């Protein structure tokens, strides 16, 4: 927590706004107390039956002022604090984005990153709650504690100290004890919950299997233990909270009692003094509203702590790149010269002595089972990863020296192309910001989406919806392809773009892809031999090595294994 950079800086960043929140919050509490205080005084004073009604005029006026003041200040405080927190959120989000943006390797393990990203986004929401539910109420509570103690201490130092002591028990001791006790339980509950989550997923995703295995009892039994221990732990937490709340109330009751004794002792010199008696007691009562919830806020701390730790632990590795160069991008020859790659010295080698020359306009297909290093090769080609041995060059320049121009050299069509939740037009325009509307529409027409789009009620302004839901898998690929056409790079990488598509869609899509990209270099990673006729070169990878390579026709003639695979794929 010491080196935190995600929460602490914000105490100073919007300092004056923050101060305003505390002032408004304190005023809210004070008005609430003062309302009861002046009301009590008004009644006590009135009970002396003064001749002139004007004598209670000022307290009456104040009563009204405080009566209006409390809701107004509360209203303003809530607005201000939300505004502040959201401002901070904008900063945090931008920062999280920028942090992740720098670190391309973060996204290497695509499966995992989806989950992590969700967690990180959630963590920012947790920080919002940390401020709204714990930090603000606690600080305002402490200001009130100080004011009350000073106020009473002004009348009598010793009584002021006694009250301060009780207030500290209420706002510091009990919350700290509470969070200390609850922390372990919260973590335990979290652990049980994640086990339960797995078990419930087993129940639900495996429902078919449970049913046909006819194992209803086991199905129900699966979660029983964890539900029981979760319930037990929750029960303990609840009991603890209930006793804690009772303790808080008792301490508060003691404060009231001691105030009653105090006022009886010190405000009984004359009637004018005695008129303040009810005021003190009544004024103290509303304070419980702002002091007792502090413990609750503390209890949530462990949860926030996790979030803050996770955010602080995001590591960003600034890549050390060699001096960047410029090259002519018209004709691009890629040379891979006997490279090897492994992530760390003690991890297995993913690529072993791999060589390849990719001439301009080559259509190269790379085939291999998962884990054979297909994706690693793509990352090496684009310079996301650095070979441990030798190098990859583009027109004889190390690809690592071309990172400033990589988006002018490579474009990528992957398994699930990402469409942003905006219009079709905007999504395609991302390919080239200088493209005119006509150029965009032409690109859409070339990928065969013109009719589909123009049939839609909003045509090119149609929203693609979250992650492109509006369109089918094949259509999404076509839209992403249009984006690539606008990007107009000499090399296009196809990373299994047809996975999850049915063969008919796959056929037509691959036909379109190779038709519109015929003058580009294409590096195509695929998992079967469908549409392989489009490739000039096929490269079979297995266990970090090239198993066979050649043009598909050649291979079909000469290589028996290829022949078998091809026949299987074609069903002939």
């Amino acid at each position: 927590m010491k080196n935190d950079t995600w929460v602490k800086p914000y105490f100073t960043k919007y300092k004056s706004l923050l101060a305003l929140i505390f002032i408004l919050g304190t005023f809210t509490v004070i008005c609430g107390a003062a309302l009861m205080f002046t009301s009590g005084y008004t009644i006590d004073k009135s009970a002396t039956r003064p001749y002139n009604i004007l004598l209670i005029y000022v307290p009456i006026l104040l009563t009204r002022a405080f009566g209006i003041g409390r809701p107004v200040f509360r209203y303003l405080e809530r607005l201000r604090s939300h505004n502040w927190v959201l401002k901070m959120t904008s900063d945090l989000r931008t920062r999280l984005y920028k942090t992740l943006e720098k670190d391309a390797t973060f996204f290497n393990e695509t499966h995992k990153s989806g989950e992590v990203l969700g967690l990180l986004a959630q963590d920012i929401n947790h920080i919002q709650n940390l401020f709204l539910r714990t930090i603000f109420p606690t600080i305002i509570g402490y200001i009130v504690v100080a004011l009350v103690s000073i106020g009473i201490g002004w009348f009598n130092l010793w009584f002021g100290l006694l009250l301060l002591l009780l207030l500290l028990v209420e706002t510091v001791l009990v919350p700290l004890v509470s969070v200390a006790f609850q922390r372990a339980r919260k973590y335990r509950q979290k652990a049980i919950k994640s086990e339960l989550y797995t078990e419930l997923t087993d129940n639900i995703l495996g429902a078919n299997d449970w049913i046909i295995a006819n194992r209803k009892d086991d199905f129900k039994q699966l979660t029983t233990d964890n539900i029981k221990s979760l319930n037990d732990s929750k029960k303990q937490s609840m009991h603890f909270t209930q006793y804690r709340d009772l303790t808080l109330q008792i301490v508060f009751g003691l404060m009231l009692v001691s105030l009653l004794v105090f006022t009886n002792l010190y405000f009984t010199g004359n009637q004018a003094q005695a008129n303040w008696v009810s005021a003190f007691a009544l004024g103290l009562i509303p304070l419980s509203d702002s002091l007792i919830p502090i413990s609750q806020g503390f209890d949530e701390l462990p949860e926030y702590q996790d979030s803050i730790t996770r955010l602080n632990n995001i590591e960003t590795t600034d890549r050390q790149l060699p001096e960047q160069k410029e090259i002519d991008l018209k004709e691009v020859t890629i040379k891979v010269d006997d490279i090897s790659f492994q992530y760390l010295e003690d991890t297995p080698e993913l690529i072993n002595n791999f060589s390849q020359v990719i001439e301009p306009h080559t259509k190269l297909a790379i085939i291999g089972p998962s884990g054979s290093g297909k994706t690693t090769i793509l990352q090496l080609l684009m310079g996301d990863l650095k070979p441990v041995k030798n190098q990859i060059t583009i027109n004889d320049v190390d690809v690592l020296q071309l990172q400033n121009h990589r988006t002018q050299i490579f474009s990528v069509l992957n398994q699930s192309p990402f469409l942003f939740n905006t219009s079709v037009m905007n999504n395609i325009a991302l390919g080239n910001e200088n493209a005119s509307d006509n150029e965009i529409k032409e690109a859409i027409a070339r990928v065969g989406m013109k009719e589909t789009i123009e049939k839609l009620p909003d045509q090119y302004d149609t929203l693609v919806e979250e992650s492109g839901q509006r369109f089918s898998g094949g259509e999404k690929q076509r839209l992403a392809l249009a984006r690539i056409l606008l990007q107009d790079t000499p090399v296009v990488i196809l990373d299994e773009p047809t996975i999850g598509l049915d063969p008919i869609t796959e056929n037509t899509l691959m036909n379109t892809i190779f038709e519109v990209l015929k003058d580009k270099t294409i590096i195509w990673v695929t998992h079967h031999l469908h549409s392989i006729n489009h490739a000039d070169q096929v490269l079979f990878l297995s266990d970090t090595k090239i198993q066979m390579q050649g043009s598909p026709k050649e291979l079909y003639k000469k290589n028996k294994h290829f022949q078998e695979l091809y026949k299987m794929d074609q069903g002939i």
Partner: protein
Amino acid sequence: MIDKRLFRLPGIKQLFTMLAGLTVLQAFVILLQATFLSRALVNSWEQKPLNTIYIPTLLFFVSFLIRHTLTLLKHRYLHTKAQQITDDLRSSLLDKIYTTGPKMIGKRGTGNLVTTALDGMDEAENYINLVVEKMINMMIIPLVLLVYIYFQDVKSGITLTILVPLIILFMIILGYAAQDKANRQYAKYTILSNHFLDSLRGLPTLKMLGLSEKYSDNIYKTSEDYRRSTISTLRVAILSTFALDWITTLSIAILAVFLGLGLINGTITLYPALLALILAPEYFLPLRDFSNDYHATLDGKNAMNNLLDILSIEENESNDLLPDISWEINSTVKVQNLNFNYSDSHADADIKNASFELHGFDKVGIIGASGSGKTTLINLLGGFLTADEPQDIQVNDHDIPNFAQKNWQKMFSYIPQNPYLFSGTIKDNICFYKPEATDEEVQTAIKAANLDEFIDSLNDGLETKVGEGGRGISGGQAQRIMIARAMLDQDRKIILLDEPTAHLDIETEYRLKETFNKAFVDHLVVFATHRLHWINEMDYILVVKDGEIIEQGTPKELTKNKGYFVELVESMRGDKL
């Protein structure tokens, strides 16, 4: 605010009665607490010595203690009951998943169901806790206090009575408008928080387009837009709380003035005046508590509704209509005019008038374009989906209305495209249909599935943990585990397959094919696929188009017919080398 179905939950009435009893008691203790406090204050005001307030102060503290002890008891009772109720609900939910399983999972989504069963339960529990307590407090405490105040001072009583309809009116006018806005805001919030997540997920794409750096401005801008719109909504949304606050504080102020005037005129004495003033905030407190928790209960309410909706899904009727038979070489299934409609839009087609027969150990392929109804047909055969109406189905001359029959389901194994691996060991997964299998049987099954080499390569062998939190298993190995599972239970003579190799790379598929073929011997196989090579392994093909079986026959017959089958195969095959 409250779903009526909540009251129909078992145990909830008892809960209400018990809590109502405790709350009445509590209301009286609040009265006592106020009277003793007033007494002590009046004595101090009269400048009486300390010993005159000993007794009232002590009694005040005792009633204060009892009041909060009652709160503790209420909470304890309520929480225990709420936990019981949610446990029962969870248990019913699991039963529901088991009985109506896949039908509902398809409709609700797995994620939704898991969330409902876990977090949703917490929210529902929280909802019961909040709603029941606050509602009972609101209905009982103000009423008791008000009656008492009338006895003490009619004018104060009238003042407080008049305010209630005013508050309610205010709440209705402001609350509804604002709440509606707030609800919409909540929906928008979800979109925007998704926008951020969306952008993070889209980061690799932005990077490839060279736009990722620029896009950070967009993140900030969207977030700031959201802030502005939230604040402008909040301005209205929290007006209802403001109004309630305002009326409460102002009515206390007004009450204080009335009481003051009454005291000056001598129409009231200090004791009842003080009592009324002390009770006034207590009178409004339950109302304020109730409205403060409105938003906290929103989530709970949704979770609860979601849960109750799921529980109200109708279950299949009896699953015991098929006698205990075993599948033999001469067994048959006859299906006449099978129909099935998805009630809402669905990726796969409805099934229309499908008639077919399955015989002995035939290999039957189901071929069609994607979305043509292949998967629906397999799910119907497995009894995972059932039509609402009884269908014309015969298994060995026994009439059954659908395939969701226990004795049918114990005769087949099911292998989907992405088989589900349970979190546990490989052995647990293999023995899933037959947990009591001997080690020897397991070894035989592993060999049959050509899984022995892979298992030997693992440090923990059969005891290797897989599934969530376990070792990742490649698609090919997962399918072999499924085959071993099917081979282990020799009583299951039917295998239903749904695209088991579509997502695998060609080498893996090639190696797996042999294993599959070996497993198919002496089994009835029903195989939905669009991988063409499987057609050659089939004895009989059902060709599906838009939910109808438009052609069926042996592959040879179909090829000769030159109908849709040939057309389909051609368009799937694509251009030749």
